[in-house]
């Protein structure tokens, strides 16, 4: 039986080995991804981002446990992909997210995989999307993706996930400063974790204020030429079918607020499906993937046909300020075509 067949039949070690091949970008990995691709597109992909130490892993642990032991309905199978940074100097990494996920051990309905970022910026590894696809094809119904959380707005996760949680915590420096520009744009749900800590209320308030600043149109709408104020309930729907990110307080270590958070996630999923956003996000994600791959492949092919000597010559002209970078590219492209 092929390894892909084994993955589809639920063989966990086969899955694990395929993930390694995908991560290492081997021929086997690419072939496996291609074979698994028709089985993807079913899982709910939930991104979890936020600065290190805010409690992302602890929250994922609790949420996953909640899905495995729901107060009502059937349990869902859960996969977790946790990305930690690689050292830029040695390429090595310490992947420690499993420390916080002990409650999930011994449950065959859960699969946890740690990934090093391997030089990629933006909070994910290059192979994360592929790893998520394989887990999706293997039948996991909910897939959490925990990002590096290195501080900059990690927009890649918003592109990959259906639902993005941005986790904040009080006491990590100036609360408003810590909330990076761009982070609000990617948040579908804002979580104030460590709500047991002093300052949680002001962090929550700061987030709500920033939401209002980021989306003034959500408060003031033009109605027959007159500006009028409308109240839009957070996490709720409204006429314009706009999603307003709710702000939810949690204490991951004490399992508090997890049911509210799970309810908000369920609501967001419903919203996506009702409005057609689910489809739209899927299409956006896949078209970005095709575009990125196309770019990489074209570059690689072009480099193969480009004589190294010619390339160096043009670069030297740029170093000497005789050619601007854009002119250099023009020159390289036209000479490659001629050859």
């Amino acid at each position, binding site marked *: 039986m092929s390894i892909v067949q084994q993955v589809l039949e639920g063989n*966990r*070690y086969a899955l*694990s*080995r395929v*993930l*390694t091949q995908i991560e*290492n*970008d*081997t*021929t086997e*990995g690419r072939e496996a991804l291609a074979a698994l691709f028709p089985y993807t597109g079913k899982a709910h992909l939930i991104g979890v981002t936020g600065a290190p130490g805010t409690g992302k892993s602890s929250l994922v642990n609790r949420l996953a446990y909640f899905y495995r032991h729901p107060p009502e309905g059937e349990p869902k199978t859960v996969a977790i992909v946790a990305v930690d940074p*690689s*050292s830029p100097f*040695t*390429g*090595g*990494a*310490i*992947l*420690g997210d*499993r*420390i916080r996920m*002990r409650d999930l*051990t*011994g449950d065959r309905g859960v*699969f*946890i*995989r*740690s990934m*090093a970022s*391997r030089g990629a910026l933006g909070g994910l590894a290059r192979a994360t999307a592929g790893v998520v696809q394989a887990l999706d094809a293997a039948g996991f119904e909910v897939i959490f993706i925990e990002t590096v959380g290195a501080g900059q707005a990690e927009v890649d996760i918003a592109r990959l996930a259906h639902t993005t949680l941005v986790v904040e915590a009080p006491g990590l420096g100036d609360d408003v400063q810590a909330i990076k520009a761009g982070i609000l744009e990617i948040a579908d749900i804002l979580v104030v974790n460590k709500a047991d800590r002093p300052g949680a209320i002001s962090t929550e308030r700061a987030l709500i204020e920033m939401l209002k600043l980021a989306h003034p149109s959500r408060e003031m709408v033009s109605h027959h030429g007159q500006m009028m104020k409308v109240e839009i309930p957070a996490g709720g729907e409204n006429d314009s079918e706009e999603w307003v990110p709710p702000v939810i307080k949690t204490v991951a270590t004490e399992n508090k607020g997890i049911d509210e958070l799970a309810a908000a996630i369920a609501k967001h999923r419903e919203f996506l499906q009702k409005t057609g956003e689910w489809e739209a996000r899927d299409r956006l994600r896949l078209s970005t993937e095709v575009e990125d791959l196309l770019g990489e492949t074209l570059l*690689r092919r072009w480099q193969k046909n480009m004589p190294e000597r010619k390339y160096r010559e043009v670069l030297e002209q740029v170093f000497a300020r005789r050619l601007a970078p854009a002119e250099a590219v023009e020159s390289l492209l036209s000479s490659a075509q001629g050859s």
Partner: protein
Amino acid sequence: MSERRIRVLIAKPGLDGHDRGAKVVARALRDAGMEVIYTGLRQTPEMIAEAALQEDVDVVGLSILSGAHMALVPRVIELLRQNGQDHVKVFVGGIIPDEDVPALKEMGVLEVYGPGTLTSDIVADIRKAVLGEDDQSG
């Protein structure tokens, strides 16, 4: 464009309470360019084998100070085999009496490291075991 990295699980089975040694080794392996999955204190052999399987590691390093190595180590090795991970190399570090070392190696442990071991030796041993490489550089 393919890239292979040695993946190591550093685990701390048993009930003894500190993991300083395990962390020093984890950092040294990272600094040698390896990807180290660190799982924290008080892991059962079942938890260790499960993590090794999901993470598809090349190496499992067990740090044991409790004196329970003669029970824990064979159990971990047995579970790895049951899962089809016979090829995974197992190392043990901690306080292990000399007289137990041959028995541990008999069970399949590649090397046993006592206090004062140079981390560079551990790095070199792992590279050699996984890549068949004798080079100690880096």
